[in-house]
């Protein structure tokens, strides 16, 4: 069931201010046709504002919104042919599910028979046929969510916007709906922009992710790119759970080797990484290591850094070990279930092929 043609969305140099607060600061990106594109960031990052500007619910202070290459800044939301699923679904409480689904079609003046046909067709797709006579108040959260999706899809819009659509569902349903939504988006092939603060949602569902922080675009890339090659410390810290560990370090050259000195331990850099670090000319850097790239040993090892166990978080199939070096707590992933008494000394080694090095001055990635 592919209804949609090719539709690209472009945001150019978007600026939106609320009073003195700059909610969106010169953000630009391009969403490809049929793409499942995510706007990811913490609360207050401006991601919802960007989405609302695309929808036309907010007027940009600067910059352009282009749909299919056409500037739509001055086009009323009702004329943009965009559909949106709201966080709280925004179903019309006085209408039945059928009327909710039919509303956008009525507004477009479709004949009754066509409306009926499309509503039934979509109800079947979303498995809500038996709910058509009910009012939104009589539905469960998951059902309301489906109706909200349906109302957005029914008129086959050019672009589909979703503002945290899963955040009001319970954890189990959310995981189920993630796969469901991803599947539906691919089946329909509709250009979709999805706002979330949940990096797991973004990583599991997105074709590409745009990360925002304090109104500024940090990085645009595939889930793999933002995970493996974060552009800066913000992206590195935001993507991945548990978050990446950061160590302040100085670059030291000794006997032809390049070392990172954190004050507590020294690491010798592999030659390719060493070259990049030297080329950057930075002397003070931030070392970033993901918990899954830290190996934990119970016995002393050559070149391993001793650390004290702070607490362990067993997850059944693996264990998160929180350890202390220099009074700061870091996390490591241990691939088995293990229990270690807090205070025990362990030995850690970094997977040097997977370390990240950032400039201390602005957090930008060097490696």
């Amino acid at each position, binding site marked *: 069931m592919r209804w949609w043609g090719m539709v690209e969305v472009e945001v150019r140099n978007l600026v939106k201010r609320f009073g003195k607060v700059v909610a969106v600061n010169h953000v630009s990106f391009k969403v490809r046709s049929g793409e499942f594109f995510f706007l990811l960031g913490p609360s207050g990052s401006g991601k919802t504002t960007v989405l609302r500007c695309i929808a036309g619910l907010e007027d940009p202070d600067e910059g352009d919104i282009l749909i299919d290459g056409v500037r739509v800044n001055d086009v009323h939301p009702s004329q943009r042919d965009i559909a949106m699923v709201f966080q709280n679904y*925004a179903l019309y409480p006085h209408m039945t599910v059928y009327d909710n689904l039919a509303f956008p079609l009525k507004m477009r003046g479709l004949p009754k028979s066509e409306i009926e046909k499309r509503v039934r067709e979509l109800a079947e797709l979303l498995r809500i046929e038996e709910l058509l006579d009910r009012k939104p108040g009589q539905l469960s959260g998951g059902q309301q969510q489906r109706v909200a999706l349906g109302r957005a899809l029914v008129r086959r819009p050019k672009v589909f916007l979703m503002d945290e659509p899963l955040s009001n569902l319970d954890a189990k349903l959310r995981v189920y709906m993630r796969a469901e939504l991803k599947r539906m988006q691919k089946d329909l092939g509709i250009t979709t922009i999805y706002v979330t603060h949940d990096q797991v949602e973004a990583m599991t569902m997105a074709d590409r992710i745009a990360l925002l922080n304090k109104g500024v675009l940090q990085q645009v890339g595939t889930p793999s790119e933002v995970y493996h090659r974060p552009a800066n410390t913000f992206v590195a810290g935001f993507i991945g759970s548990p978050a990446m560990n950061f160590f302040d370090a100085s670059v030291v050259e000794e006997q032809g080797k390049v070392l990172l000195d954190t004050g507590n331990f020294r690491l010798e850099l592999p030659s390719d990484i060493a070259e990049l670090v030297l080329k950057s000319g930075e002397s003070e850097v931030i070392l970033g290591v993901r918990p899954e790239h830290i190996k934990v040993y119970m016995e002393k090892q050559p070149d391993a850094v001793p650390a004290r166990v702070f607490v362990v978080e067993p997850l059944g199939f693996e264990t998160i070990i929180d350890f202390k070096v220099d009074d700061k707590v870091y996390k490591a992933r241990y691939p088995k279930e293990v229990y270690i008494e807090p205070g025990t000394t362990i030995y850690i080694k970094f997977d040097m092929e997977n370390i990240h090095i950032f400039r201390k001055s602005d957090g930008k990635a060097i490696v």
Partner: protein
Amino acid sequence: MRWKIALAYIILTGLTLFWILPYYVAVATSFKTLKEVTEAKYLEPPTTLCIDAYIKALREEGRGLLNSLIVSLPATFLSVLIGSLGGYFLARFRFRGAQLIFFLVAVATFIPYQILLVPLVQVMGALGLMNTYAGLIVTYTVLFAPWAALISSAFFMAIPKELEEAAMLDGAGPLRTFFMIVLPVAAPGIVSTTIIVFTSVWNDFLFALTLSMSPEIRPVQPTLAALKGSFVAEWNTQMAGAVLASLPPLVIFLLLGRYFIKGLLAGALKT
């Protein structure tokens, strides 16, 4: 807990009796003969169901009742229509000076409306609307539209903004959004506003008296006042007139009352 509920019911029953008493006296008196009325046993029920008083009251007051309907219905409709559009605007559109406008509307409704009597009469005179239905309708609309705006704005504020945004994205323009989404969702509030405005217009005496010079135009309240008789105080006729005059608001309340209660409670409880 039990005794608290019982106590509440006892107090409520007492209050209900207290409030219903005048109406009971009016109804009881209206069915009495003039002779029975003069015996001054107000609380006793009538010995016979005499409808002479109603026949007489209807003969003298019928035109007034009709006039009141002719004036109240359009005045209520216009007040609620204009008022709810204004109330929606006050509730939704935050612009520079919105607070001030809200404040001014509130002040306008809180001013004792007797103050407006002289200027309004002069304006109506200048417009040639004295002693016309139109004059009364316009006057009541002017008086009660701000009320309606103020009351309805509270209900509009309780409607999530996303509903309107969703309607907009679904292709509805501002007016369609208002009439197809906002107004139905705010229905309990609109009904409450309608009841309050209709009752106020219906019960008004001052403007009804001042702006109508002839019985052909005069609404029911001044007509009712004229019912008391020149030589004998015909209490039964007066009471029959009063009961008749109270029926339309009562009917409206009974028809729409459940919305009224809903409206009063809107926003009080988390749904």
